[in-house]
């Protein structure tokens, strides 16, 4: 490349950056803007999840020639898990044609998008997390905390503890400590744990770990003094291995430490070394490579060096599989919408319809190669979560082993909490909730 041509391409790139950055998009391409994070303190989660997501989209393109002939495209924008960067990415990426849905994997970014995405009519998917109220599709038509929202997670964890104790009635008088990350995400479940503690009569103490959580000695000393029966870990990033190590340090039995959905990956336990042996955590999609869809990804992509993960050891890891499941849900939502609107690239509004009518039963999931990887899901206009069942897994020092069957949250109990939160938001923002006539 000569100097002038370099200069010219630099100028071009500069112009591109400053103008509306639109990735090439034709009528038969459906575009996924990815607000990924591959650096920063939470990079481990980002690389796994977005790796899995991209792998699945790629698989659908290569294996099936897209969704009914519509090619899937995507483009990554680094957020470092920071809200501002997420917003910047959103503003940049939304201008592209045929945007399917945003998948920020960050509560903060989701909240920042609440009004924007609603106005722009683009769905925002927050699998396994998201603001509690967004489960109420009447107030938040464009937001989908798919698979499991924070209240469901909370309830499932308490149900699991109840199961281990031999029934929910045995929870009475038990002592539970919740150790949460000092961030919007960490605090999201505070009122829900309080509600459940009241209902089941267990003693509850919620302790905050300041971000980033690399030192938890005082929290764990407090825990040691409280002598709880269980400690629930609502962690994120470095906080998790440190919690596990600190538990060992104060002699707390690690199998009574229950991790939530963001404290459940290999990246959370491996740094803790042998201290993590016996640690239990919740999961919506088991890890492992035995699932047919994962096998196909290995065969179609990784064997041909087309996979997204740098480290092949991470194939089938918790975050990777979560990304794959996320891919399945997104792709199936598009397929669902295509049934109504035709086999073409769809608008965000049309994709929203697809998500709202997403209904995967066991048979369909098996056909997609996801048997055992995800449970059936049925999203409706009012319920944007879709199911909420989880399993629990235990770390043996090498890999995760499932230690429970699907455990259901107490969704009837939680629905009023969700609706109240949504109603409060609607009142604040002067939103008239849709009526969901089904």
């Amino acid at each position, binding site marked *: 490349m000569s100097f002038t041509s370099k200069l010219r391409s630099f100028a071009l790139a500069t112009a591109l950056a400053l103008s509306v950055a639109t990735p090439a998009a034709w009528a038969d391409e459906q575009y996924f803007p990815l607000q990924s994070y591959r650096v920063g303190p939470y990079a481990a989660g980002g690389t796994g999840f977005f790796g899995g997501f991209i792998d699945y989209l790629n698989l659908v393109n290569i294996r099936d020639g897209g969704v009914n002939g519509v090619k899937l495209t995507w483009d*990554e924008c680094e957020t470092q898990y920071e809200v501002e960067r997420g917003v910047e990415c959103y503003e940049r990426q939304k201008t592209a044609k045929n945007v399917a849905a945003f998948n920020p994997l960050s509560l903060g970014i989701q909240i920042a998008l609440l009004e924007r995405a609603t106005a722009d009519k683009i769905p925002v998917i927050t699998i396994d997390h998201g603001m509690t109220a967004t489960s109420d599709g009447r107030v938040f038509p464009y937001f989908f905390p798919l698979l499991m929202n924070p209240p469901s997670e909370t309830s499932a964890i308490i149900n699991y503890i109840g199961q281990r104790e031999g029934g929910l009635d045995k929870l009475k008088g038990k002592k539970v400590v919740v150790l949460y990350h000092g961030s919007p995400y960490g605090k999201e479940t505070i009122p829900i744990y309080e509600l459940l503690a009241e209902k089941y009569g267990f003693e509850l103490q919620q302790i905050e770990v300041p971000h980033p959580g690399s030192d938890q000695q005082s929290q764990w000393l407090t825990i040691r003094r409280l002598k709880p029966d269980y400690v629930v870990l609502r962690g994120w990033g470095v906080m998790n291995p440190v919690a596990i190590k600190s538990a060992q340090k104060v002699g707390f039995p690690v199998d009574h430490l229950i991790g939530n959905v963001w404290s459940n990956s290999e990246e959370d336990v491996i740094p803790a070394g042998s201290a993590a042996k016996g640690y239990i955590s919740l999961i919506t999609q088991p890890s492992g490579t035995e699932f047919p869809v994962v096998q196909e990804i290995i065969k179609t992509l990784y064997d041909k060096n087309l996979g997204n993960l740098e480290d092949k050891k991470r194939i089938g890891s918790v975050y990777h599989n979560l990304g794959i499941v996320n891919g399945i849900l997104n792709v199936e939502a598009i397929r669902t919408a295509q049934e109504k609107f035709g086999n073409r690239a769809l608008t965000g509004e049309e994709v929203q319809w697809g998500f709202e009518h997403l209904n995967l039963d066991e048979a369909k999931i098996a056909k997609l190669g996801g048997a055992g990887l995800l449970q059936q899901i049925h999203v409706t206009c009012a319920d944007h979560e879709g199911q909420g069942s989880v399993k629990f897994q235990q770390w043996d020092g090498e890999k995760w082993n499932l230690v429970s069957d699907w455990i259901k949250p107490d969704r009837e109990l939680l629905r009023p909490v969700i609706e109240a939160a949504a109603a409060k938001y609607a009142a604040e923002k002067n939103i008239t909730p849709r009526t969901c006539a089904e």
Partner: protein
Amino acid sequence: MTAVTIESRKPFSLPGWAATAAVLGVAYVGVPLLASNYVLEALLIPFLALSLAALGLNVLTGYAGMVSLGSAAFMAVGAYTAYNVALRLPGTPLPLVLAVAGFAAAAIGLLFGLPSLRLRGFYLAVSTLAAQFFVQWALTKFDWFSNGNSSGVIDTPPLSVFGIGFDGTIGRYLFALTVVTVITFLVHRLVISQTGRNFIAIRDNETAARVIGVPVLRTKLLAFGISSFIIGVAGVLWAFAYLRTVEPAGFNLDRSFQILFIIIIGGLASIRGAFFGAALIVVFPLVLSRLGSFLLGGLFDSGVLDMSQRIVLGALIIIFLIAEPDGLVALWDRFRRRVFPGT
């Protein structure tokens, strides 16, 4: 840090005014007509907010010579104060909201500026970190600040001044532009006055300043107060005009560093420096990432790009400190003199 860049000593000379008028003309008329939503929303509005924050820090660091690593905290104080005033005293006119937010930030700034009376250099710099951590903690800890939202996230109300809504993208841009223009003008007036000279006197030689009769302690606190006021208002712009949703974690140490980097790169003790630096900091990552994906295609993922960006940014800081301690402004002036020798 003996920055020798001084704004032109002839503030009312014609070329300066003409240039300023031209820039304002483009900003007020040209930009709203021509710029796309994306440019306004993702580039210009954050640019304005960051410029203002950098301007505020420049008063403290560039002019008065005290390095602060707590700017983001003062932005947060401004943003959250404005939010609470707007929420709890509905009907408060927006300019008043801005002023209250600024004064709240100034009060916190004064409090955390107290150590400056006894500490200098990086003892002081480190002590400003206390503000950074304390404010962030308080905002997450006490949900009163975020109106009972336990996650600390706030949604800002729409902007309107005396019944005129500034809610569209262009409206928010014009609002931010006006605030920045007014404050910049006032800061310009300040730094060419005796107060501004006192700041520089303390920066360049505190002992001599004291002997001459500069009220050193009062002047230092004044610098903290004014600087925090401006940064607080910048925080309001950041929250109300740019993001419209903020969380305490958004005002983290990285943001403070970013603002410090803006003035190092742009030019210490220079009003234009804040704008030059902010422009570079806002545009540069985008250019780099576009450039990266354009030249290298899909060879590297976004993570690699971001990492390279970090390296380049860090290297830029070092290079500027070594080769051009007066920042982009000095480069620009030299360039201008070469191209238009007359001016």
